[in-house]
């Protein structure tokens, strides 16, 4: 008799674990930093909850599959499923995680129709925002809100994270307003992902998932640039783990 199913999303920056009950409601959510030994971290997390079946996703899924003999699913399908749990009519998904970003288009039945990933370069990912927040002296949780307070944007032209960081450093040295630079940093990420969204999923509302979805400035800039609604659930960071848990439940 199976009642509870877990999904674990082993990402490059964080690991999320969600347990759902028979009706697909999340009853546990856990989050930890991935660190240097993701399997030890994952082991500790799964030890803290009770479930009858688990499915793994994220870049560490294959390690998890070997270590714990669990089925796996790509983060693309997992995020698509998680997004549909938040917004059942979702047809477009944007996920920005620690080290990649992806745009996904779904069919009416929720199946992945088309997707594109950026994982070759930190530009347009959470890591880019994290480095820039640190350079500007903001906590990552406050970065978006601070940027929203800027009256105008200082354009950041470098695409590469390393060069953008030196560009930001020189702007600080020139006495540019910190919040304006912060807004420019967000606009730079927005332009990258907006282009990807336009290619893969050019019409309709967009469900934003992954940790970066918590950034209010990026949501606002995207909505403004694309002229489309950006749908956001407070549990957006758990979309991958939730999706994997639901897929485990549905496979049982």
């Amino acid at each position, binding site marked *: 008799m199976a009642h509870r199913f877990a999904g674990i999303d082993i990402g490059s920056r964080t690991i999320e674990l969600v347990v759902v009950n028979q009706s697909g409601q999340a009853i546990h959510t856990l989050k930890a930093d991935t660190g240097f030994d993701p399997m030890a971290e994952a082991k500790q997390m799964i030890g803290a909850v009770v479930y009858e079946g688990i499915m793994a996703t994220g870049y560490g899924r294959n390690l998890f599959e070997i270590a714990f003999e669990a089925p796996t*699913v*790509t983060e693309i399908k997992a995020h698509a499923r998680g997004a549909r749990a938040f917004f059942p009519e979702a047809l477009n998904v944007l996920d920005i995680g620690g080290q990649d970003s992806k745009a996904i288009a779904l069919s009416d039945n929720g199946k992945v129709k088309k997707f594109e990933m950026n994982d070759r370069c930190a530009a347009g990912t959470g890591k880019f925002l994290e480095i820039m927040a640190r350079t500007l002296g903001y906590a990552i949780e406050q970065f978006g809100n601070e940027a929203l307070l800027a009256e105008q944007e200082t354009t950041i032209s470098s695409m590469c994270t390393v060069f953008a960081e030196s560009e930001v450093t020189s702007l600080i040295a020139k006495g540019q307003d910190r919040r304006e630079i912060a807004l420019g940093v967000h606009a730079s990420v927005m332009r990258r992902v907006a282009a990807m969204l336009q290619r893969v999923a050019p019409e309709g509302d967009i469900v934003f998932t992954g940790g970066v979805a918590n950034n209010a400035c990026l949501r606002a800039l995207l909505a403004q640039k694309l002229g489309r609604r950006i749908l956001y659930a407070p549990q957006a960071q758990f979309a991958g783990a939730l999706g994997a848990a639901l897929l485990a439940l549905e496979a049982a």
Partner: protein
Amino acid sequence: MLTIPPLMDDGFAGEPAKRVLQYMQAHKAKGDPIVGIYCGYAPIELIQAMGLVPAVLCAFSKVPIPAAETVLPANLCPLIKSSFGFIIEGTCPFYAMSQAVIAETTCDGKKKMFELIADIKPTHVMDLPQVPDQREALPNWKQMILRLQEFLEKTFDRKADENKIEASLQAANRRNALMQKIFDYAALRPSALHWSEMYDVGFLALPATGAEMAPRLEALLERLEKRVRDGLHFGRPDAPRVLVTGCPVGGDATKIFKVIEAAGGAVVAPDACTGMKAFAGTFQENSGDPIGAMAERYLKIPCACMTPNERRLTDLSIMIDRFKPDAVIDVVLQACHAYNIESHKVGRHVQEAHGLPFLKVEIDYSEGDIGQLRTRVEALFESI
């Protein structure tokens, strides 16, 4: 990896370059001059009609790339960097054997790279027309083949009359027809031919003459027929079938085929100059103008360097009907603008005209992106 006895059970299974090297060494020992070639546009039948042996030069290893990058920009196609690196490091045995090299103006990177190697060995560059359906293209290309003939006559002091060239075309037609019969075994569901076996056969069938190959190919066809009778096939019967199109894929770039297999798929149709494209089409026989017939067939190669390149889409449709793939993957080598841009059209065609899931991947020869490739390919299979 294979539990089925290899198709070419000669000790070189899965190592097509070593088999070809042995073939070249045998010809070299007989005193046959060797000509290096890089690309599917090199008119092999002319070379063979003159009693010369064409050797495809090394281009698919990541090893010589750091050496190449001491001269070439890093943000360049790995195939060009590898080719150049092999030459400056002196590690390509085929180049070492070659007395001359034939090159074509296919893409900018290659054109300019050829200038850098032109003083090492006699290097003849053919000016390839790139708007193939324009009236002037075919006569111009025929002129370029005649010019190549002059170059080879002068360099090797050998001649080929029209009869010899005609015979060479006819032998190539026979060989290509047999190759198509071999590929038919990959079209079976489940497939009875592995991509690495297509490479084993194709890498030898390309430089060898039609006369040399015909009996070998017929023997292979018998083996394949027996394989089918014995009920042998590759992968799970329900494995997603993949047509791989795009840039040439060999050596270190075959990681994409391995990723497809690791994700549970089967590569049933490698369409590229390294795969089936080399044996496509037929030469018109007894036309009275064998060089013209040669020019016509070569100009029909649907390389992304051509514009417009609608033939690529037409040929893809024929291949899709024949090999019945469940998905199409377009392989773009890093910094290959022609294939990269064309991918947009290819993706639209595959999805809209055939309703098949499509994935473009940009790869180089390194191993660093295998995890990311795996995620993309698995997600593609999930969407079937």
